[in-house]
């Protein structure tokens, strides 16, 4: 079995308000993330999912327990740079993570920080902008870009640093449908090329894309499984104020009327397949 890229071992985290009061945000969380996985972390507002994601590159450090990124403990200050080179993070607000006045310079920012020689930078910037489809915008100022484009630049800024894992902390929540679509396409492509993805989200259609889902509630891991397994627990998810993808809702409804129609479908194209399958079987022609 391959070694996990990120190991989360019994991690608890609390914010201290003042001397004698603190808020427990994470409580004994454990899971592993393996190279090449696409992990979705879901949970409703205040469940601690965002706090958890900020632990993965050592921005926050566990109050107890340990996190290892390729055997580097995030608590060790000396290893911080190594860890952040391996685990890149894109945040929620597209406007608040672009530092420079033109796209190209912003992508260069991370490279400058990790002292990539200037001769190598151009090539890496070209590669990163190409990967997110923003090559034509390299000389543009960020305020002339749409939200989705800004978020793609933010991803490029991380990609140029050649990380092993990309963490998206609700990176699509501020975007419109088109922007979100673009980001998801980019993520899909990166994952296909071998990049490990951790996506913190509450958009269930994004969760359906993942290979593993971790459900968080009150700072604890409630469920871990494939999206199809997770969405079976419709009632539990509902109690946790979480939804299932529209495709799955539809499949369930149809299943109630027609038990031959499978209830565990989660992708739109699966619905289409199922309708085709059943109509062929029953000799009904669907155009």
């Amino acid at each position, binding site marked *: 079995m391959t070694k996990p890229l990120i190991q989360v071992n019994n991690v608890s985290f609390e914010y201290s308000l003042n001397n004698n009061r603190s808020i427990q945000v994470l409580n004994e969380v454990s899971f592993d993330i393996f190279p090449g996985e696409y992990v979705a972390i879901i949970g409703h507002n205040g469940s601690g999912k965002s706090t958890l994601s900020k632990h993965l590159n050592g921005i926050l450090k566990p109050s107890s327990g340990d996190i290892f990124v390729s055997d580097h403990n995030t608590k060790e200050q000396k290893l911080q740079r190594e860890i952040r080179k391996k685990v890149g*993070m894109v945040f929620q607000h597209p406007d608040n993570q672009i530092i420079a006045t033109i796209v190209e310079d912003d992508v260069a920012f991370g490279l400058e920080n990790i002292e990539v020689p200037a001769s190598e930078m151009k090539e890496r910037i070209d590669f990163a902008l190409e990967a997110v489809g923003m090559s034509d915008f390299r000389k543009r100022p960020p305020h002339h870009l749409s939200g989705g484009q800004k978020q793609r630049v933010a991803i490029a800024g991380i990609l140029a*640093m050649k990380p092993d894992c990309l963490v998206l902390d609700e990176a699509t929540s501020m975007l419109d449908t088109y922007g979100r679509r673009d980001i998801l396409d980019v993520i899909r492509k990166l994952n296909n090329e071998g990049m490990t993805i951790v996506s913190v989200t509450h958009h269930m259609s994004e969760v359906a894309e993942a290979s593993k889902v971790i459900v968080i509630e009150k700072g604890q891991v409630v469920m871990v499984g494939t999206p199809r397994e997770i969405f079976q627990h419709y009632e539990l998810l509902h109690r946790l104020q979480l939804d299932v993808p529209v495709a799955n809702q539809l499949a369930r409804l149809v299943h109630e009327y027609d038990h031959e129609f499978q209830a565990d479908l989660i992708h739109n194209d699966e619905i289409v397949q199922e309708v085709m399958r059943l109509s062929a079987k029953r000799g009904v022609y669907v155009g």
Partner: protein
Amino acid sequence: MASFEFELTRNITIGQYLPTGSLIHRLDPRIKLLAFTILVIAMAICHTYVGNFIALAFACYLFYISRIPISYGLSGVKPAIPFILVLAVLQLLFYSEIASGGTVFVDYGFILITSDSIRLVIVSALRFIEIIFLSSVLTLSTSTTQITHGIESLLDPLKHVKFPVHEFALIITIAIRFVPTFAMEMEKMMKAQASRGAEFGTGAWWRIIQRTKDVFPIIIPLFNVAMARAEDLVLAMEARCYTPGSERSIYAKYKAKSTDYAALLFCILFAVLLLAFPFPY
């Protein structure tokens, strides 16, 4: 009321780069900044009519070779006119002790107008215009990114005396980067406040206190937002391995060409001419 009342983003003049690809545009930004500084110093010291008219003509000529319409320069002068006028009146009335030489024209009570004080007034007005023209050419022909890169690399030697050159350049960059963002933010807030009945800019201009109070409901939330953004930005920078004070490599490297040196030399010669040549008036 103007229909563009809330359109703040369209009025931002900082970094109004106008790419025409002229000779001036293609100059090394470091050379441009150096030449700009030298010329401004020379213009600020030169105190003859002829010298200043030559300098003004030179500034106009710069517009011509950078293929930027001179109207851009004039629109920069327009908002400065009240200042120039107030300054002129003050200088005319109160600088007579310093500039008391030459022919006396008026000597009435404390008012003493001489040919020297008139010269002072006209020359300072000319200087004002020259310097506005010059800085317009600089900012219109150089992108803000180039300017900050230029400043960073010009200040580079100061690293030896522990001056945080990179941090300084980064502060400028971030400040410039967020100007349009905050302008848009402010626009949103003004619209939100106006839709709840707040009025902006409707009081008469002399009611300064009232006009100032009008701004508070915008400024305070804007500060709030700025703080929240700053916090986010710190996280994003840290996530990309930024550690203040540590070694970094630099992406933008400029290499001065012979045309750059020629341009710099020309500006130095021009400055020397302005300062040293005994102009008759």
